[in-house]
């Protein structure tokens, strides 16, 4: 369905960007957990 391709691409770009941001936050959080927070 080539007419629907623009919507598919808009959705894909948005999804990838949001998931990449979530993944980056999660990996920063894991790094901090490894450093052992003093009061956690």
């Amino acid at each position, binding site marked *: 369905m080539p007419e629907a391709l623009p919507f*598919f691409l808009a*959705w894909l770009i948005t999804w990838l960007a949001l998931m990449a941001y979530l993944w980056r*936050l999660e990996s920063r959080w894991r790094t901090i957990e490894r450093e052992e*927070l*003093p009061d956690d």
Partner: protein
Amino acid sequence: MRRQRGQMLTAIAGTLLLVAFALAFFWVPPAAEFQRLYGNGHIAKIVFVHVPLAIISFVAFVVAAGFGVAYLRTRRLRWDALGAATIEVAWLYAVLATVTGAWFSRLAWGAWWNWDPRQTTMFMVLLTYTAYLLVRGAVDEERRASVSAVYAILGSGASLMLYWVVPYLPAIQQVSLHPSGIIARGGLDASYRAVLALSTLGMGLLFVQLVRLRATLELAERRLMAASR
């Protein structure tokens, strides 16, 4: 427990967004008015991504101002972290709303960027909050939270003007190509409204989870830095 709640929120948001996408792709028909105007009725489905991103970013900029007021009243760093996290995630949503809007512009009007009033006001919103992120990074630590809070409050006023006042001025509406008028006068059928609601809910829940995670990180990094001094 907190971590599990976050994972559950991400899973619910992801499921809602996947269901919204499947319904948009397989169930929602192409919009007749978009077919007539732009030669492809399927491009109307970009609203399922573009509109939730734009609306949530606006609401978030206002909520961030609320966190700014809460910080100035209580001086609790938790409010500062929540305000900064809200603006960072809202900025990302606004960037994605601009990108998907430019994609629609390319398909409907033949150019990625036309300086249409809607594109121009969104660009100004992005400039306003890009400056917020730069200012927050540049100000020294003692004044960072207060400066950020005041900026967030002033920025929300600018957002209100740029999202809801300027684009709706009669003189601006006459020259704008933005298809919000088609949506406002019911030019899209009921299936569009249902999927738009589902998509907005999914993106809203994902927004909440991203802000929770970002604010927790901000506070944890601050504690780590304090401990290492």
